[in-house]
């Protein structure tokens, strides 16, 4: 086995050749014979009663084939929530219907209430402008607190804007209250986790093809999760049998969570293709992406940290309002609860944790999981309040964290928030951070900055996340309506090369490079002979897609299990070829051998034999060499890390620049360190974007103010320093055969509080009495904090 290309090798990403040369094949690149174009009529108001939708003029426009309105979907199902969350009082959450097209009411700017199908996109757009909708505008429900107290409802039929009022863990509530009441010191902080627009580089695109001869459908769509999309459309929305619907997600240009979910546009193009018996396509404009992709974050939180007189943490208590927008997107109910509340012990041996989350409907776009999903919100609250406590008590923030860390000999450790952390070594990670970030040299660097007239700040953070979201039996008890295993089929072809069909979907993660490294390493073959097939429900086993840093831990483990089955069958074939029994056959580095003899056969010969079984004992061995494994883990994995950021603040303008950023992470075992580094870089860029730049803003009428790149600030290369990334601390996950944990979201989880801690530190160095600034830390906000 060439060790420079197996597990642990920094192999270059093979998919980059096609991406960098512009030869990727994205949904929008697909062109079908006789195709038509869909364009949606979307609400310009945040809340309104649809009195009439007159399509007669639109239908007469040139090139128009057909027009749909909400009326056409009254008798089909709605797009469901994938997770049932119960309120503290035991009541189930409120689940208003999310129709394919709005009917009766529009509920956010961009809510689609009609669609035109025409011969060209231009014609469809022209005709959509001729749809005469009489929509009576109503006052918008935007602010979460007023949404909860008011009587103007986003969904009249549920009579409240509260989806649920969740407590975690309800049995710990009283003990937590008492710990806070009796504590030596309590630090309180109110903060906002700013709403974000996902901004995948590729806008959403869906193309439906209907074949009347067989009454079956193909949907090409930008999905992180093609099997889930198919399941939702089949079981809930349109009722198309699963075996009559193929969902294909070819190359996808970024998702960050926003493409996990099923969207109404997918159902619309399918229904339209069936009605007109021609392919129907739709690609979002960038404006549509801003208005209708599920947004991220949007929490308002009050957090309290109680400490004893020796600065030991006694309790964390949080009250959060989480915005779900106008409709429940598929995972919008689990993101602010299970994915957030369970992480509220952080990396700390704290005896009491209580989390209360009220999730609120508003007249805004749906909000759902976005890179990190709940865990960035948890980390941000924890790591900001810890820094504030350190300030109040005059303690070194690093030491305060270290003092309260769960120690490496305490694992497995069941936290007060209910998770069972299997392994970790937070002090070791912090050691790496202190080394790389040269924390000791900070005072000197601050002096240098001051000589230039700049304020310098240092921010530290430690984070933990739960990845590889699973296991199915546990999440089932927590309300999940889906399983969260994954699956892989290993098909060894007759000539010895290998096709691996996986349930995970790659849209930037580099699976096509990393997964073959695993297979190649285990089978002792060249990774270039291993091909990954993903994103097509007619080719791959029923897996659950990619999100939550789960692909390697869950699907990678399914690959391992599948390869183990291949080896075990290969041994039977080899035993037959070498006239022995399989218990006497060993397999190593691509060679089967009979123990204690010099008899061997190669993996390639065994593969060939499997498909040309002329002399097989067919009663004992089936022909072929292909195995499928489903893998359902026992637990989450728990990557953890410590980050440091140094900033300079221009005291005259409030402008923040990031001078250095260091990330030390423990991702367990690593398959490809180069890909890991790239994932961390991307996550850091997004987290720094959230901290300094990005903010999705609705005005009080529900108009989206930050609706284009003229007003929504994306991070650019020039905004970022050259990152220092370390992942040499590796405590292998005890739960999966690879010992891996997941790295896709870490950077976005750990960086926002690090940056904010640094800016607050910078301002305090100039005697500004600032304890917190809400993100994004725009120049104006920082200036205002210095001058209020």
């Amino acid at each position, binding site marked *: 086995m060439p060790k420079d290309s197996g597990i642990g090798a920094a192999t270059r990403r093979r998919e980059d050749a096609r991406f960098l040369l512009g030869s990727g094949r994205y949904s929008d690149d697909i062109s079908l014979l006789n195709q038509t174009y869909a364009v949606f009529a979307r609400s310009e108001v945040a809340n309104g009663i649809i009195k009439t939708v007159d399509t007669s003029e639109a239908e007469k426009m040139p090139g128009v084939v057909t027009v749909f309105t909400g009326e056409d979907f009254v008798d089909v199902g709605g797009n469901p929530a994938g997770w049932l969350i119960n309120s503290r009082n035991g009541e189930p959450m409120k689940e208003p219907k999310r129709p394919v097209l709005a009917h009766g009411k529009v509920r956010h700017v961009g809510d689609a209430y009609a669609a035109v199908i025409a011969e060209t996109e231009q014609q469809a*757009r*022209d005709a959509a*402008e001729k749809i005469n909708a009489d929509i009576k505008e109503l006052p918008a429900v935007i602010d979460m607190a007023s949404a909860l107290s008011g009587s103007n409802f986003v969904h009249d039929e549920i009579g409240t804007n509260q989806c649920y009022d969740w407590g975690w863990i309800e049995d710990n509530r009283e003990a937590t209250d008492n710990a806070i009441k009796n504590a030596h010191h309590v630090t309180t902080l109110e903060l906002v986790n700013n709403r974000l627009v996902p901004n995948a580089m590729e806008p959403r695109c869906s193309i439906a093809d209907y074949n009347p001869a067989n009454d079956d459908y193909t949907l090409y769509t930008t999905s992180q999760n093609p099997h889930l999309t198919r399941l939702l459309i089949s079981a809930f929305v349109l009722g198309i049998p699963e075996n009559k619907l193929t969902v294909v997600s070819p190359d996808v240009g970024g998702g960050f969570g926003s493409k996990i979910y099923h969207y109404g546009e997918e159902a619309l193009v399918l229904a339209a293709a069936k009605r007109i018996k021609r392919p129907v396509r739709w690609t979002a404009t960038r*404006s549509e992406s801003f208005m209708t992709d599920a947004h991220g974050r949007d929490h308002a939180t009050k957090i309290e940290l109680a400490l004893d007189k020796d600065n030991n943490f006694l309790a964390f208590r949080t009250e959060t309002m989480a915005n779900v927008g106008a409709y429940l997107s598929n995972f919008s109910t689990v993101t602010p609860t299970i994915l957030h509340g369970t992480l509220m012990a952080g990396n700390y041996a704290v005896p009491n944790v209580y989390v209360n989350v009220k999730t609120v409907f508003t007249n805004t776009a749906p909000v759902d999981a976005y890179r990190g999903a709940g865990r960035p919100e948890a980390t941000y609250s924890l790591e900001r309040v810890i820094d504030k406590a350190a300030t109040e008590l005059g303690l070194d923030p690093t030491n305060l964290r270290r003092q309260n860390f769960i120690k490496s000999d305490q694992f497995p450790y069941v936290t007060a928030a209910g998770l069972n952390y299997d392994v970790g070594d937070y002090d070791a990670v912090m050691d790496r951070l202190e080394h790389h970030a040269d924390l000791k040299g900070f005072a000197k660097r601050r002096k240098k900055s001051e000589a230039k007239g700049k304020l310098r700040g240092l921010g530290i953070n430690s984070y933990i996340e739960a990845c590889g979201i699973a296991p199915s039996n546990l999440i089932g008890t927590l309300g999940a309506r889906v399983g969260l295993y994954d699956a892989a089929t290993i098909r060894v072809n007759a000539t010895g090369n290998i096709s691996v069909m996986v349930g995970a979907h790659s849209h930037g993660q580099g699976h096509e490079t990393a997964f073959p490294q695993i297979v190649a390493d285990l089978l002792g073959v060249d990774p270039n002979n291993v091909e990954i097939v993903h994103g097509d429900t007619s080719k791959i086993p029923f897996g659950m897609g990619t999100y939550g840093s789960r692909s390697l831990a869950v699907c990678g483990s399914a690959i391992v299990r599948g390869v183990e089955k291949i080896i075990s069958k290969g041994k039977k074939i080899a035993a037959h070829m070498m006239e022995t029994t399989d218990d006497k056959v060993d397999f190593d580095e691509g060679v089967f051998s009979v123990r204690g003899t010099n008899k061997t056969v190669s993996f390639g010969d065994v593969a060939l034999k499997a498909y040309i079984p002329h002399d097989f004992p067919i009663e004992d061995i089936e022909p072929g060499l292909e195995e499928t494994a489903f893998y359902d883990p026992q637990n989450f994995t728990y990557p953890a890390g410590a980050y440091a950021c140094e900033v300079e603040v221009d005291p*005259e*303008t409030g*402008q923040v620049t990031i001078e250095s950023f260091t990330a030390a992470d423990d991702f367990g075992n690593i398959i490809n360190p180069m890909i890991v580094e790239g994932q961390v870089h991307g996550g850091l860029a997004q987290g720094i974007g959230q901290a300094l*730049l990005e*903010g999705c*803003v609705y005005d009080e009428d529900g108009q989206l*103010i*930050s609706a284009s*790149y*003229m*007003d*929504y*600030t*994306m991070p650019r290369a020039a905004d970022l320093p050259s990152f220092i990334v370390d992942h040499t601390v590796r405590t292998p996950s005890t739960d999966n055969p690879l010992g891996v944990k997941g790295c896709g979201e870490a950077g976005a989880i750990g960086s926002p509080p690090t940056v904010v801690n640094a800016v607050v530190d910078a301002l305090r160095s100039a005697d500004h009495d600032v304890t917190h600034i809400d993100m994004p830390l*725009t*120049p*104006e906000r920082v*200036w*205002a904090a210095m001058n209020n």
Partner: protein
Amino acid sequence: MYNFEFKQPKTISDAVNALESDEAQALGGGQTLIPTMKQRLASPSTLVSLTAIPEMKGICKNDDGSISIGGGTTHADVASHSDIFSGLKTLAENIGDAAVRNRGTIGGSLANNDPAACYPAAALSAGATIVTNNREISADDFFQGMFDTALEEDEIIVSVKFPNPSSSSYQKFVQPASRFAMVGVFLSNFGNKTRVAVTGASEGGVFRWSEAEAALNKNFSDDSIIDLSIDHKDMIEDIHASKEYRAHLVKVMTKRAVASAS
């Protein structure tokens, strides 16, 4: 975008004739107009491109030392020309990105008079003359409020004549998302006289900060700015900056312009 006719005349007079037809509009680099058309917010039936008219391109130094820049000259050409004074060079170098600079034109920028655009500050500060197909307009008369200028319908900016200041500076504080000017201050010093023009800040569009000019005419030093303040009442307020913050930035950027003028 709606359909439109496209014309590319070779002379100014052909362009003027072409513009006389109903709903015809001049097209410079298209960096503002084309995105607006894509959003279907503008729908001219004819676009008259000004980019193939040789008389409207290029930069030359006049006998009186002033600089004439053709109305169809791109930001990139201004940024790289050796006769351009330092403030103007900095300004052109920092507009948008390379693609915008290679297409966008000074004529288009001035005609559009976006309240956050950079060129209006330079023209007003340096006391430039806007030369059109039928008259010359001084910068002091040209800018008439947000997106409003002294141009008549179908009037074309043929060139812009800039007096050559002895020192100048452009200090741009960028709006974080668009990277247009949230506040941009252009300072031109003509030895005994300083002119300070501010863009990005005011509801009324680009303006001259006369108090700062008076103070600097007495003593050309950034100390002269320290005790000044500018009323925030008429400043722009949006999600990026309050009126107060913009007023504050006007002062800071002016101070920096004085300190860096060269």
